[in-house]
């Protein structure tokens, strides 16, 4: 409990109170669908009580992102030992696969052939399928009874959005895997060395973005006397939530939120792609296309191709997220001497700070197979995760300090408090300024070592990206903190995984939408095509979907 509170209060150095208000809920578990009668008469329940004799629990695992050492394998590791020792839960892997994509393929077949393990982690669509098929346990009462106060506190950090997303008809069917939703906050990454060379200021407005893009394209920022550079990255998906430089951020600068469901001023939930704010953003992209400020072949380029251009030092701006240095542009510093990437908050159409889109905090859902005799074990596992990671921190379950092998991903039920990365950023910055690393967490200490290594050697990629994400001086986390501190974000307003008409029609509507955007940007059709799209969208199911979303939400 204490450590959780600490996590929250440490969120932002400058403005704790407003941050606390915006992201943490007033009290724990109050939005939960409560079933009061049953819990009243019950015996006292130990959220971390041990089963004796031990119970069996089967799971399925993906080993993506996991590293192992001599003592640990996916079938027998420090966490599985701890589960047996502390909780009396004997975990066995029904199957394991090496990657997330393979995991989804295999899981879909498992679900369709009614061959699922006792505990599994699923996505929103799989969750809906499992609920409709009656294949999983209703956890409403169990969660109320067994969840520790600490667990409820963390689950409440997002105003219970994630719990809401796990519920159908008021019944909670899953323990949501919270994720730092700050990963969905977009920001503008710029080659600072190019700006400096061309004597330009960082952009405040979208108009300035256009001017910088012009200069980056036409004024030979890489100094090779060839016109071989571009101002801005765009890929063929145009917008994209994760893991790719979509230009969502550019749209958001105009107050447009394509592909997202948001609340309008009247409180109604609406689909961002059909709002009139889309128009000026599309016109700006069309202008950039016409002038050659974006690659004329963006329409066929996937994110890998776009990253190549960034890494080769040929494109000077992209709209990314806080993790972009890891997957998008880290090799620039190896390929181009003196390359500097800085992160800036989204420039807006009128120069006032733009509101970035903040996505869902539930990335996946832990569910229990129908008929499993101890469904409360799932809640205990969640309690145990929170207890050992954030309350009474058990270092031995975190990371091997010497080898750096991370142990915490071995846990079968785990999630991150929505604000974890921000906490680390604040610790890192404070320690860098004071030189005192004694009071900060092990994770943050490792990050500081890494940043120091980069300061010694400017070609140390690991240190560079730690610096760009967690460090100081236009780092990603500074931008994230500025959004959260000043409440410059728009929340995801879609709290159901899907609706009947959405399942049926959304893929067709998405095709219509992406085709419309591509054609307008490429100048095949004028901006009036947007109005026609909005009409068609509503007529071909969009209106019905909007209605359903507002009813079900």
């Amino acid at each position: 409990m204490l450590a959780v509170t600490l996590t929250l209060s440490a969120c932002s150095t400058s403005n704790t109170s407003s941050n606390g208000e915006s992201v943490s809920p007033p009290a724990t578990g109050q939005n939960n669908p409560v079933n009061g009668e049953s819990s009243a008469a019950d015996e006292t329940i130990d959220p971390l009580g041990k089963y004796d004799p031990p119970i069996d629990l089967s799971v399925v695992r993906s080993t993506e992102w996991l590293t192992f050492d001599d003592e640990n394998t996916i079938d027998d590791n420090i966490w599985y030992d701890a589960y047996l020792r502390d909780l009396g839960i004997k975990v066995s892997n029904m199957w394991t696969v090496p990657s997330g994509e393979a995991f989804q393929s295999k899981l879909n077949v498992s679900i369709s052939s009614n061959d699922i393990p006792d505990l599994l982690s699923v996505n929103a669509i799989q969750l809906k399928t499992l609920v409709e098929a009656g294949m999983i346990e209703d956890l409403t009462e169990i969660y109320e009874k067994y969840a520790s106060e600490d667990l409820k506190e963390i689950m409440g950090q997002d105003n219970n959005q994630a719990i809401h997303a796990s519920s159908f008809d008021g019944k909670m069917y899953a323990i949501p895997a919270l994720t730092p939703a700050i990963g969905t906050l977009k920001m503008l990454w710029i080659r600072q060395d190019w700006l400096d060379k061309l004597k330009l200021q960082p952009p405040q407005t979208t108009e300035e973005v256009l001017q910088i893009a012009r200069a980056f394209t036409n004024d030979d920022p890489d100094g090779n006397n060839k016109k071989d550079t571009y101002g801005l990255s765009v890929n063929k998906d145009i917008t994209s939530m994760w893991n790719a430089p979509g230009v969502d951020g550019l749209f958001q600068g105009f107050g447009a939120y394509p592909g997202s469901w948001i609340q309008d001023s009247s409180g109604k939930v609406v689909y961002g792609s059909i709002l009139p704010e889309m128009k000026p953003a599309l016109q700006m992209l069309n202008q950039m296309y016409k002038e050659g400020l974006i690659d004329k072949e963006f329409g066929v380029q996937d994110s890998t191709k776009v990253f190549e251009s960034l890494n080769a030092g040929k494109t000077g701006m992209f709209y990314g997220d806080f993790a972009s240095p890891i997957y998008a542009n880290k090799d620039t510093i190896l390929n181009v001497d003196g390359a500097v990437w800085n992160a800036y908050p989204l420039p807006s159409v009128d120069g006032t700070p733009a509101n970035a889109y903040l996505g869902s905090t539930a990335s996946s859902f832990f569910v229990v197979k129908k008929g499993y005799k101890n469904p409360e074990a799932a809640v205990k596992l969640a309690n145990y995760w929170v207890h050992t990671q954030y309350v009474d921190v058990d270092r031995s379950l975190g990371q091997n300090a010497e080898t750096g092998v991370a142990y915490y991903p071995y846990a079968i039920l785990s999630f991150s408090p929505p604000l974890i990365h921000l906490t680390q950023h604040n610790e890192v910055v404070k320690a860098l300024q004071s030189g005192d690393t004694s009071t900060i967490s092990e994770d943050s200490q490792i990050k500081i070592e890494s940043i120091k290594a980069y300061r010694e050697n400017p070609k140390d990629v690991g240190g560079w990206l730690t610096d760009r994400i967690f460090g100081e001086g236009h780092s990603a986390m500074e931008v994230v903190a500025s959004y959260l501190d000043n409440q410059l974000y728009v929340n995801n307003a879609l709290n159901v995984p899907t609706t009947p008409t959405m399942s049926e029609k959304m893929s067709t509507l998405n095709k219509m939408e992406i085709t419309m955007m591509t054609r307008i940007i490429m100048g095949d059709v004028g901006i009036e095509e947007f109005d026609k799209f909005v009409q068609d969208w509503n007529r071909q199911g969009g209106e019905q979907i909007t209605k359903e979303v507002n009813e079900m939400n």
Partner: protein
Amino acid sequence: MLRGDFDPPYTLQEGNDEMKSNRWKRNLPLHLMIIPGVILIFLFAYIPMGGIAMAFQKFIPNRGLFGSEWVGFANFVYMINMPDIYDVVRNTVLIAMSKIVLGQFVAIMAALLLNEMRNRRVVRTVQTLIYMPHFLSWVILGGILVDVLSTNGGIVNQLLGVFGIEPIFFLGSNSWFPITLIASDIWKEFGFSTIIYLAALTSINPTLYEAAYIDGANRWKQTLHITLPGIGPIVVLLALLSLGNVLNAGFEQVFMLYSPQVYRSGDIIDTMVYRIGFQDFQYGVSTAVNLFKSVISMVLIIISYRLVYKIANYRIF
């Protein structure tokens, strides 16, 4: 030489009972040979075929095939009512048919040309090299093609530039995209398809060529009158079997190469079904689509099987 228990096999016999039992005895080894195959096919093809029922159901996993709700042809109606379905079917047939016809033509040409080459070492090297692209997945080739076909310094457009041709946006233009799909698929597969024709060529009796030469036929005439008829049955057979693919335009390839600007000319049945699957678990719909594809293929194959039998008096299988 001693006579065994066997009668000469291919003498027609009027069927009285004794003859029939004789034939049964003689054919017993044939049945024994075929039995292991029959059993395996039963276990691994006929038993799972029960899954076709899903096409007529709203399939719920834990109720299984017997417990799920029957919805008649609703899944098929859903499929037919999808907007753009005509575009998508047209694209699929156009791309698939072109790949089949041109692919087979190029493979036969390559086999014939290889057959004319006399330097063994060169023949083997060429054979091996043209067979290699078959082993590259479209995931790998997709990235390479975007580079190679780029209008901005891509090698293909540079070559065309030498002949004064303006750069062509192969992957982004609706008129060129299907052609690019077809051409790159043929390039990838022709070497591999050649193998089977090369095998067929080996079975042509060389004495035929000698006789033709003595009769004064040149190589062209020999090719026309000996080689082509020699591989004819295999060509017809493969053409017929490939009809099973007229609605398979190559999911992996299209998925890797297409983009919103070429949806109009490049979206195929399989990619559409894939996008639907992203929204929801629609096993009924995807099974219905597959069944639809199978039925079309089956009808086409049976018709052509009959035609070949009528015209050439040849049972292809």
